[in-house]
Structure formats: C-alpha cells, structure tokens
C-alpha cells in the first residue's frame, strides 16, 4: 500500500496511521482496511509495507503495542496512540494541510507567469 513505487512519502504513511489510531487502538489489519475504506482504495498498494512503518513508529514512541483479543476472539497485536503520537498527529496534520494548500494554490492558479506573457 505504501511502498516506494507508490510514490507516497514515508511521512504520509505515518500521518495516515496516526490518524487511524486516533480513533482508538487497532491491529495492523484493521489499520490497513480502514485506510483503504476511507480513501476508497485510491491508495491501494501492497499491504505488507504497512508493518515496517508500524514498527518504526513504535520505536519512536508514537504508538505502543499490546496484545489483545480481536472482535472474533483471536489473539491480535493492537497499536495505540501515545501522548507523543497525538502531538505528532497534530503537527503532521497542519503540516500536510499547509503543503496541500500550497500545491493546490499552485496548480489551480489562473495567473500566468510573467515570462509567458
């Protein structure tokens, strides 16, 4: 889903995971499924690449892992947002919005550059 070929930045993956987990603790499969659902499968790539990202984020202390029972009573590894993770989410969200707005402003601009006149 987020491998290098997809052209998505590592930071984008992390932002999406953080956003997903802001709803509550979830296992890796749930995170992948949720992202696919809300993005209407637009970012659909290999799901496996999600896991290294989760482990890296756990190492950075943004999310923590614990074992729990899934909806159908299977043992599953759940990820939960930490305080640091929440801070990261806020930071990255506003960063993304500024970035997106800037790119948007550029590509929807109707003012031609001076050299084209």
């Amino acid at each position, binding site marked *: 889903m987020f491998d290098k070929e997809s052209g998505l930045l590592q930071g984008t993956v992390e932002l999406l995971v953080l956003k997903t987990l802001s709803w509550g603790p979830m296992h890796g499969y749930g995170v992948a499924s949720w992202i696919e659902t809300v993005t209407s499968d637009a970012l659909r790539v290999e*799901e496996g690449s999600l896991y290294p990202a989760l482990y890296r984020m*756990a190492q950075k202390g943004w999310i923590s892992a614990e074992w729990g029972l899934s909806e159908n009573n299977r043992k599953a590894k759940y990820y939960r947002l930490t305080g640091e993770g929440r801070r990261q989410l806020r930071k990255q969200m506003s960063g993304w919005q500024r970035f997106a707005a800037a790119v948007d402003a550029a590509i929807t601009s109707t003012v031609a550059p001076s050299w084209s006149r």
Partner: protein
Amino acid sequence: MKEPRKLPFIPGKPAAEVESELRFHLEHRIQANIAAGMTPDEARQAAVERFGDVEGVREECARLLTADRRTQRRRDWLDDFRQDLRFAARSAVGAPMFSLLAIVTLALGIGANAAVFGVVKSVLLNSLPYEDAGSLMRIRTPIKALGDEVGSVSAGTLSDLRERQRSFTTFGAWLSERDAIYDPGDMPQIVKTQWVEPSLFSTLGVRFIVGNNFREEDAGRDTAFVTVIPWKTWQTTFGGVPDVVGKQVRLNNIDRTVVGVLPRDFVMPEGDADYFYPMGIAPFMRDPISVRGSHNFGLVGRLKPGISFETADRELRAIGDELEKLYAKDNLGIGMIGQPLRDSIVGDTRTPLIVLLASAALVLLITCANLAGALLSRTISRRKEFAVRVALGAGRGRLVRQLLTESVLLAVAGGIAGVLLAMVLLGTLRSLSLEAIPRYADLSLDTGALIVTFFIALFTGLLFGLGPALSVGKSDPQSSLRDEARGSTESVRTRRLRGGLVAGQIALCLSLLAAAGLLGRSLWEMTHAPLGFSSDRLLTFTVQLPNARYPNATTRGNFHAQFTEQLKALPGVAGVAITSALPTTIANRNGLFVENRPWGPNEPVPFMVTSRVSDDYFAVFGIPVKQGRAFSSADIAGAPPVAVISQEMADRYWPNGDAVGSRFRWGPPNPDQPWTTVVGVAGNVRNSPTALRQEPMMFFPLRQQPFGDTFAVKTSGDPSVLTNAVRTALRGIDPGLPMYRVATMENVVDRGFAARRLPVLLMMGFGVLALLVSSVGIYAMFANMATAREREFGVRMALGSSRGAVASLVLQQGGVWMALGLILGAAGVFTTTRLIRSQLFGVGELDLLAIGAAVVVLLGCAGLALLVPVRKATRVDPITVLR
C-alpha cells in the same frame, strides 16, 4: 472503535511475534475475500498478492523489533539503576552515622591502596625515560668474594667487551659523579659533574631539547672543553634561555661551552649531575696499572633487535669468565653480568614496595570484612522493610541489586575521598624526595591509576555488599514479618557469616601486625646496633680544594694544617678530624695483597673498605685503637707508608694476632708499589648501617695520601651552633672555597636509615589502621550478639543464672570466632613473614617477641572492644526484657 480486551504482554521471540501478527492479517484478508465470493484458493492467492513480499516484510519487521527490544531493555535497566541509586542515596542519608563511618573507613582503605599503587606504578610500571627502554641493559661485574656486591667495569674489560660481544649494538660508559666548583664570579658553589662517553646519550636514545650530543671527537682528553647540561641546570643557572648553546660556564677554573640540553625527564642510570663532560676510554687504556685494576666505569648497552636479556646475560657471563682466566691477576673473582636497566635502577626498592602493596591490600580486605559485618547488621535491622517490599512484589534479584547498589555507592563515595587522600599522601612523599624512590618516578595518580582505583572501589563495594545482599535474598518474608513482630534473634546463618567475617579480620590483622612488628623490630635493631663509633656532638662538612689552586700534596697539606689550627682555636671545639669519607658512607674499596701470602690461583683478591684519615680521626670519632698506634705527625709523605686496619681485617688476614708490623700492598696489583706497614688495629666500624655484616677496613694517613676534604668537628655543645664560626674561619683562609654538605654526624647516620624507615613506618601505620578497624568489627559482633540474645539472658537471670555465667556465654560464643581468627592468622603470619624475610635485620623470621607483641596488642584491643557489650549483657534487667 471499542477497547479490545487486553491480554498480558509477554514479550516473546521477535520473529514469532511478527509471524503471528502477519498471519493474523493474512487470515483476516482471506476470510474477507471468501466473504466477497472467492474460492478459498483464490482468496489465499489474492490476499498474498495484496500483501506483497511476505518474506521480506517478515524479516524487516523482526529486525526492527529486535533492535527496539534491545533499546527498551537498556532503558529499563537505566531506569531501574536510577531508581536504585536514588533509593541508595536516600537510605545512605537516612543513616548518616553509618554512612559517614563507612565512607571514612573506605577512604582510608582505598586511599592507602591508591597511594601505594601510585608509587608502585611510577616506580615499577611506568616506562623509563629512555627510547625503547626495554632493550637497555646495565652491565656489571659481580665481585664474587663480596657476595651480592656488584662492581663497575674497568677500561680494559670495557674495551675487550666491545671487541668480543655480539649481542649489543652500542654501549655507553660513565664515571661516578664528582664535585666541582662553579664560579659565576661572585659566589663560588659546589656542583656535581659526571664524565660520560658521547655514546651514552645515543645508546639511551636521548633526544636533546636544545643543541646536540657531544661529538665523538670531543672525547679526547682536553681537546674540547664542552658540556651537556640537564634541564634543571638550564632552568636555574641559564634561566631557560633558548640560545643557551655556545654559552660559557666556568667550572673548576676552566671555561666550558654548553653544546646541548637534556630533556626534562632525563635521569642518569646511576648518579646525577649538573654538568656532563665528554670522555673516551683511550687515556685510561694507556695507564698500565689502572687499565684493568680500576673498576670505575658504569656501563649500559643496547641489545640488538631480537636478542633477549637471557641471551645477552649468558654471553656477558661467558666473556667475564674468559677475561677472568686471561687476566687472572686483575680479574680473578670478578665476573660479568647483565641486568635489565629498570631492575638495576629500581634495585632494592622493589621488595618494600611489594610488601607495602600487599599490606595496603590487607587493610582494604579488613575494611571490606568490617563493612560487610556492619552492613549485615543494618540489613538485619531493615529486614522488615525488605520483607514488605518482597511481599509487595519486588523480586529477590531486584532486592539484591538494590543492596549492591547501596554498597557500591558507599564504596565509590569512599573511593573519591580515598583518591583525594592519596593525592595528599603522594604530594607529601614527593616533597620528601626520598632517596629510596628512583628519580624518574613522578609519584602521581594518572588516568590509569584512577581507573584502577575506581575498579578497586567498585570491587570493594561488591565484595562487602555481597554477603549481606545474599542473606536478604535468601530470607523468607513471611517469617521475617512475623519474627520482627516478636523482637528478633539473629539467624544461625547470619551469625556464622558475621563470625566468619570477624575471624577473617583477626587473621588478616594479625598477619599485618606481625609483619609490622618484625619490621619495626628490625628498624630498632638497626638503629640501636652499635656502629663502632660515636656520632655524638659532631659537625661535619666538606671543603673541596680545586686542583688549579691546590695542585699538590704540600699545598693541600698546608691548607689542612692551617684550617685545623683555626678550627681548634674556636670556642667549644674539642677536636678536629679530616677524612676522605665519613664513617658509614665510605664507597671506596681496594684490593689487598698481603706480604708472604700470595693469593692462590683460585683465590680472588679480597677488597677492603678504604679511607684516608687525619691523626685525630680515631680520637674524634671515638674509635678505639686496640693494638699499636694511631697516625702521628711522623707519618708524612716520604716516610714509610703506614696503615691502621680494622679488627675484622686483622682477624681475617692475620689470625694469629701478628697484624701490627706486617706489610701489604693495596689497590691495583703493582709490583713497584712500596709495602705498607700496619701500625695499628682499630675497633670495627659498620660501614653500612642497614647491614649487620662487618666489612674489613683499612685507613691510611691523610699526610701520606692527602685526598680527603671532609671535616668532622667535635664540639662540647650543640654542634650546629658552630656552623657560622666555621664558615667565617674558612673565608679567612680562602674566600673562594665553598663549604657544603654541612650536617651533624647524627643526621648523616640517620640519612642512611631513611630509606628503610619510611616503609616500616607506613607498615606500622597500616597495622594501626587495621587494628582500629578490626577492633570496631569485634565490638560490633559482640554488641549484636549481646543484643540479639538479650531476652534469653533475661530469662536466664530470672531463673537464677549469675552475671558471670551470662558473661561467659557471650565470651564463649564470640571467643570461638576469635580463636579461629588467631589460627588462620598463624597461617597468615607464616606467609607474610616469608615475604618480608629479605627486609629483616637482626631478628629471626619467626621472632617470638614481635609476633607475641602482635598477638598481645590484638587481643588487648579485642578485649577492650568486647568489654562494653559483655558488660551490657550482664546488666540485662530481666523485668524489662521479659515484659
């Protein structure tokens, strides 16, 4: 999303954890696919396709998780450590008296070790200030007749050695230091000079900091008046100016030009000088008598690469044996050996240093045993605290770690204080600048020594913390909690542990005390054994007569006579003697050839301590003339040569008592030398105050051999008061003559003991320290024992037991451990006394007085220490304790 039900987090193997997580993902995806209408096979394939590289992801995740776990563990450990440390600090502050006492004891123990280690490191471990010092060898000639005495090398031997040997690349020879008069124009001073071969500095690999070494051609006699100066002379006399090369300096009325400055850390392999002169051995080779007869040259050689000390030593011995056969007349009984340069410089200092190092280690061990005991008591009184912690879920391992952290914290605090103490001690030692310590030793604590000290502290903390910590680990919280409620008695285990610790302290302390006692008694014997002369009320000093102004026997004789007259005229002067060297400091030895008693082919020439003395010498020093006469004004140059010999010499070579009137020759064998007649036999004088051996001595009249410049003035009062009057008298005769080495004879003798006294005093200091610490340990054991059995004693007394019976109960219980300590101590005494055997003087290795004194002192202190607790036990009030 609702909260999932939590499962306990049990960290498994990272690979297994990743595997189970990925499988969970894939299975869910397969199920979702089946729900969407795929066949199971299609569903599986689609799931894997959508997941991507399962194998790669699994490996990467396992790697990430492993790394994460590792940092996590480290973080947890640090957190625990920080917590332990905080707790340890709090509990140390909570018991300030205990902590303070522990830190002070540790500071003494660790400080003593750090200081001694600092000395040992500087003397025995640091590299010598020469390039590749490991391949330098000192070459000496053992004089077989003098036992362990080693002599220097003759010019002939040196030249033969250079031709025959194959082990060395270069050699450098030198002569022993001589005094010279340095005259800057206003105030003449005495300085020390040494003649050295130009090759000496290059053999040692010295890098000159200013200028250069002598050139080979400077070595010819009187061809170049040049000098090399050490750093100290450069700084003091030349003010450290960079353009010192080419400057002139007037020594013994000769102007010499400075050509080079030696580096700051340079030391001569032997001797010490303010100015070095170049010499070659060619002129010495031309003198047919002294060429092989005068063994004057110190010698070092640099080994060829790959040649071992042993190989070189074997070759030197072989060459020595060859020369002994070839030149039997001069070399009979003289061998040749090689010795690593460090061994030759460190010399006699090694054994005392190792003894001191061992003693310091013993003190530290005693400290450890003592603190282990003290900590044990503290642990017992904190048993309830630990039991509560265990009951609340603290692991045993965690508790043990906690206690070890506490003891190590104390030890490190003690270590820091100890290092400060050691620095003070080393500073004191440096300021004493003892002759016993080689001059290259800087006596400082460098990084290496500090690291060693830190590990000593760490190890100490673990050592004394381990016993108590383990005793906690083993205890049962339930019984502790219950027990505590009822007032406690010590468990058998802890009682044994404590008893063992006390026994250990007594054993170590006894060993140390016995060694200190033996060394102390040796020192006493040494300083009190009769020297054979009286050092009472004697002022001694040296006046060197420069050759330029006092070129011959007549001028010297005149000066001696005139100055003696003036000195005798001073108020308070009872007598004046002149000699070539003061008693106990004579270095000069000469061969002996008795008339009508030629030495056999296998009889080495014996060497006699030789001194030139004035007529009044024997009277002034109170040396009895037992047969014949002392010298008189008739024994002048031109009159038949005469000698006074010591009783020892007379007994050895004229055992029938017919010494007086007999004749001998001396020095290098020379058939042209006139016979010297023995005119008197004097009492024996010990030449080495630190050895009991009586060396044979011969005295010659100063009138016939006017080479003596040391004066001894017998006074009726305090000799040092006379110094100024003597100086004025000398200036009246010749204002250009400096008077130096001014000291009372008692100081001169005393200086001979200084090297021996310091280690003995330190040893005794260690002994006292050990005694104090062990006494505290013994006190603590009895005090704890008495307190622990207070209730029992109360019951016994209530049932009619007498105070004496209770006291004997306490004594019996503790006495067993003390007896065990004494038995172990006997083994320790046996070991330590063997170690110090070579340091003993006039006492046997198992001297009953010294060892008995050690036992008595130890038992006395132990008795004092147990008095209070035993008394306390007998004063137990049955009513109070039973209530």
